[in-house]
């Protein structure tokens, strides 16, 4: 039987309940929510005067009502030490989501820490240290003293390169401006740490260097542009599942023709129709099915290309539209580089350096450099030539009266974690630039995003480019101490099999050393740890909200607060910045990451001073923050573009709609923002001119991929599932999710399953030259033969085990192009016997 809560009644929000501004803590879209709290011994009533909605709740409410919340939107939590009821429900007045909640965001209340209802009891409540063979609770001062002493000792022996850091760089939970600044000021301000990586990739780099190098920041449009365009091009993305309410609230209305009035009003001098959509993805995602149901198959072009061949496709489209003259000549002339440098000598095999793997140039030079015929591209991509031509026409063929088509391009992990990231990203931006679709209504060439954003740090220039491949440093025995902030490499890195083997061995050496001395003898303990480090051991400190998988190997856990337990600011995929106010207490002694970073800095200052190194100790001054607002004012307010206009008080007044960054003014009580970047045609390069990229196709770029493809029969494509946020760090204790997905799934063609004797729900092994992992087989009729799709980053089946170590020149991992064998391990376990294995795709009635 499927999981049921057997909740048939919920407490009613009283009229005088406190209302807090909140934004979903999960994905990039940042849906607006409101958090309501009131004392646990009180409740509202059904009569209009007795509830927050002012409506008669003894009556059935209508579809899309604001006056209802599901059991997942309710909990009992602590607020300033007192038990309160908590309802977190989508805000109908937020322009992002208009009251829509996804299956992830609408569970925020249920996934809050509660002693009363026993939810999220996995949360860390105390600092924990390795003592007597296990993790034991301790005080902040004790834990931080150990962290500071070992870190200082390693830096004294190895320099700052001996400190390896893994840290989030995003917004939302486990990030945000306060916390990226706190960690950034520690590692890039006080120190100049070079061996640092980000939560989902093995180096400190951009996921989209190419578009930035071309002068086009990756979040350049407004969500409204999806309502205004003639054509949406969705590349390597699955917005129905991973940017759900952006898709539902802004794409679908245009696909359905519901935004025609708005189009005619805002763009009166051209013909309008409902949007067409091109979806570039080897897999038929649920997004494709939804688009067909809404727009009709004739308005949906699904280009199911061979995995990793997007570069050839976009170069062919670029060539075709250039040859047809369907380009914006005036824009190219005014806003792009017109005097190109010569091609680098070894191009196209290599760029001018590994730092610059493409060649930035003019429109004409890029067209010649990227030139590929429709027929050649069809051969590489496996697509029908007519479909590539159709895509070019939908993107760029002028409308009646010779009016330019307005086309919006959205791309995400299929490109970012795909073959030849740099050049492919560039090839997509080439088409957007050529057609003048940046900075204009109905345009944009944007990444669709994963987490929200929330980055403000001192300069990272010292890290260099290409940045250090940190996983390889760790595997190679380098570094003595590892600080981890909200990252779980055991679930979410590439080459994870080898990484985990080596990491366990190195950290076990330190555990064994710690077991050999009494924990209360601090000097002896630090000495023992340092002896182990000199022999190749690694001391690991994990800052997180839950005990992570990599935490099993660590020696110190520091408990962090998450969004809602602290005030936190972030921006979404259209640069919309909001504050989520603190509406509940963090568990136990947990603290905001920014304050943990500050306390680490305080202890490092003290320890270095006690070692007599006053000059180095002085670098750790400036961390006397008492609250997250102190960190915000020190960081965002002083250092972000437009930050001087932004304060907590002003953000509170801006509510769930906030403003779009960068802020340019504060007028009449409002922060004035920037709906679209580059509306003035001036781009982010020293001369203000955007660059095209000369980026010809070069096959599977990362090391070992072509050999793996030749050797193993099954493509192990991978990505996200609708039910699950990120690595399931909270979902793993949510019954709705674990009931649906007791194991990581792998979608397989039913005939492949038959051939291998695999039944629905059976556990299979996925194995190749990089490693092995397991998943639960899910028959998927729309999956092509020998093309599977595995859930990424799930706790009990880590797809990264079978992703090899190959990266691009800029150390961007290539998770998507993975091939392996599949074999049955076991019949469906108990947890998988009751679940549905029916097709996940919606079909209209």
């Amino acid at each position, binding site marked *: *039987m*499927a*999981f*049921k*809560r*057997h*909740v*048939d*009644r*919920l407490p*009613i929000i009283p009229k005088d309940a406190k209302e807090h501004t909140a934004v979903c803590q999960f994905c990039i879209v940042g849906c607006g929510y409101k958090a309501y709290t009131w004392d646990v011994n009180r409740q509202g009533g059904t009569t209009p005067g007795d509830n927050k909605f002012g409506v008669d*709740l*003894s*009556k*059935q*409410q*209508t*579809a*899309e*009502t604001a006056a*209802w*919340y*599901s*059991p*997942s*939107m309710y909990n009992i939590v602590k607020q300033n030490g007192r038990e309160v009821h908590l309802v977190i429900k989508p805000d109908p007045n937020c322009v992002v989501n208009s009251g*829509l*909640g*996804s*299956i992830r965001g*609408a*569970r925020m209340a*249920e996934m809050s820490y509660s002693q009363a209802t026993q939810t999220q009891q996995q949360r860390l409540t105390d600092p924990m240290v390795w003592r007597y063979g296990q993790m034991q609770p301790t005080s902040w001062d004790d834990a931080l003293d150990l962290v500071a002493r070992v870190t200082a000792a390693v830096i004294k022996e190895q320099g700052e390169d001996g400190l390896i850091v893994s840290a989030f760089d995003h917004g939302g939970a486990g990030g945000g401006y306060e916390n990226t600044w706190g960690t950034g000021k520690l590692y890039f301000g006080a120190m100049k740490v070079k061996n640092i990586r980000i939560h989902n990739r093995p180096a400190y780099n951009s996921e989209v260097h190419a578009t930035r190098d071309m002068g086009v920041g990756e979040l350049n449009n407004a969500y409204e542009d999806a309502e205004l365009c003639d054509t949406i091009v969705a590349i390597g993305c699955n917005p*129905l599942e991973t940017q*759900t309410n952006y898709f*539902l609230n802004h794409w679908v209305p245009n696909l*359905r023709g*519901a935004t025609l009035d708005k189009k005619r009003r805002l763009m009166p001098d051209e013909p309008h129709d409902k949007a067409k959509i091109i979806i570039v993805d080897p897999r038929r995602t*649920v997004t494709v*099915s*939804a688009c067909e*149901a809404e727009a009709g198959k004739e308005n949906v072009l699904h280009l199911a290309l061979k995995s990793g061949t997007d570069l050839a496709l976009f170069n062919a489209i670029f060539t075709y539209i250039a040859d047809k003259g369907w380009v914006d000549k005036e824009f190219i002339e005014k806003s792009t580089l017109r005097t190109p440098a010569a091609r680098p000598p070894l191009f196209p095999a290599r760029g001018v350096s590994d730092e610059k793997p493409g060649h930035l140039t003019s429109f004409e030079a890029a067209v010649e450099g990227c030139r590929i015929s429709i027929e050649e591209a069809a051969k590489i991509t496996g697509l029908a030539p007519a479909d590539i031509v159709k895509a070019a026409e939908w993107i760029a063929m002028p409308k009646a009266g010779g009016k330019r088509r307005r086309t919006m391009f959205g791309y995400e992990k299929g490109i970012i974690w795909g073959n030849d990231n740099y050049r492919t990203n560039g090839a997509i931006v080439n088409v957007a630039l050529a057609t003048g679709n940046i900075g204009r209504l109905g345009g944009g060439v944007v990444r669709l995003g994963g987490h929200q954003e929330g980055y403000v740090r001192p300069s990272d220039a010292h890290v260099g480019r290409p940045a250090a491949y940190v996983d390889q440093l760790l595997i190679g025995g380098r570094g003595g101490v590892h600080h981890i902030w909200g990252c779980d490499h055991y679930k979410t890195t590439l080459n994870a099999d080898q990484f985990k083997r080596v990491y366990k061995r190195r950290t076990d050496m330190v555990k064994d050393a710690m077991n050999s001395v009494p924990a209360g003898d601090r000097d002896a303990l630090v000495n023992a740890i340092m002896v182990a480090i000199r022999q190749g051991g690694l001391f690991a400190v994990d800052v997180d909200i839950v005990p992570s998988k990599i935490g099993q190997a660590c020696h110190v856990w520091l408990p962090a607060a998450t969004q809602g337990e602290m005030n936190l600011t972030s921006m979404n995929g259209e640069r919309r910045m909001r504050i989520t106010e603190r509406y509940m207490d963090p568990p136990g002694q947990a603290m905001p990451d920014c304050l943990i970073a500050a306390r680490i800095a305080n202890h490092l200052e003290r320890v270095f001073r006690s070692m007599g190194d006053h000059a180095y100790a002085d670098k750790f001054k400036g961390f006397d923050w008492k609250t997250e607002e102190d960190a915000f004012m020190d960081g965002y307010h002083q250092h972000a573009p437009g930050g001087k206009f932004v304060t907590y008080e002003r953000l509170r007044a801006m509510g769930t709609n906030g403003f779009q960054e960068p802020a340019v003014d504060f007028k009449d009580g409002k922060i004035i923002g920037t709906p679209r970047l580059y509306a003035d045609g001036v781009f982010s390069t020293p001369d203000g001119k955007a660059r095209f990229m000369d980026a010809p196709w070069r096959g599977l770029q990362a090391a070992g991929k072509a050999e793996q493809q030749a050797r193993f029969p099954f493509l192990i494509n991978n990505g996200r599932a*609708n039910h699950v946020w990120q690595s399931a760090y909270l979902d793993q204790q949510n019954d*709705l999710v674990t*009931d*649906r997905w007791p194991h990581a799934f792998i979608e397989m063609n039913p005939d492949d399953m038959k051939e291998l004797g695999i039944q629905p729900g059976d556990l299979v092994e996925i194995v190749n030259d990089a490693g092995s992992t397991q998943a639960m087989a899910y028959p998927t009729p729309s999956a092509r033969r020998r093309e599977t799709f595995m859930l990424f980053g799930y706790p009990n089946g880590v797809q990264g085990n079978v992703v090899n170590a190959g990266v691009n020149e800029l150390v961007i991992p290539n998770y998507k192009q993975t091939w392996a064998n599949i074999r049955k391990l076991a019949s469906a376990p108990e947890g998988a016997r*009751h*679940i*549905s294995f*029916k*097709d*996940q*795709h*919606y*079909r*209209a*009635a």
Partner: protein
Amino acid sequence: MRACKKLVEVGRRQFLRGGGSVAVGAAAAVVSGGGEAQAASPALARANYPSTRLANVKDLKVNEPKDVAYPDAEMPGVLIKLGKKVPGGVGPDGDIVGFTTVCPHKGFPLFYRADDRTLNCPGHYSRFDCEAGGQQIWGQATQNLPQYILRVDAKGDIYAEGVDELLYGRLSNVL
């Protein structure tokens, strides 16, 4: 299936105009026989469900949903004889189940798809498996589909006597 198609149309229309009431008029079957809904006493911890006769086992044909309403006329649902024993199934073959047809995500009316025995939402594409206790196969609801707790008496009359999840649009399953 005639009534089910009506549900779909209502759902479509409602969605296109961006709202409207739950498909009250679409519930072809009215509550008949059985007990009457009683106002829940404030002293009780749970809603006090009516025992409502929805149909007789002889009224049902395999894979042909019968429109009903429960716990009251404002909450449409279906009874379905699936032809195989399933979770929550009653009747001589353990194959009769009942579900609300108001989507627990945003309240749009679900339609039944006989080819794979699922209830589907035209609003945001959620799909629920009638053969797996209403498990959301895919979708945006944060609940699996509320299923009726059914009883069949000696005469073959089918009574609904409870629901296992909160129904959309009401903060008490019994108003």
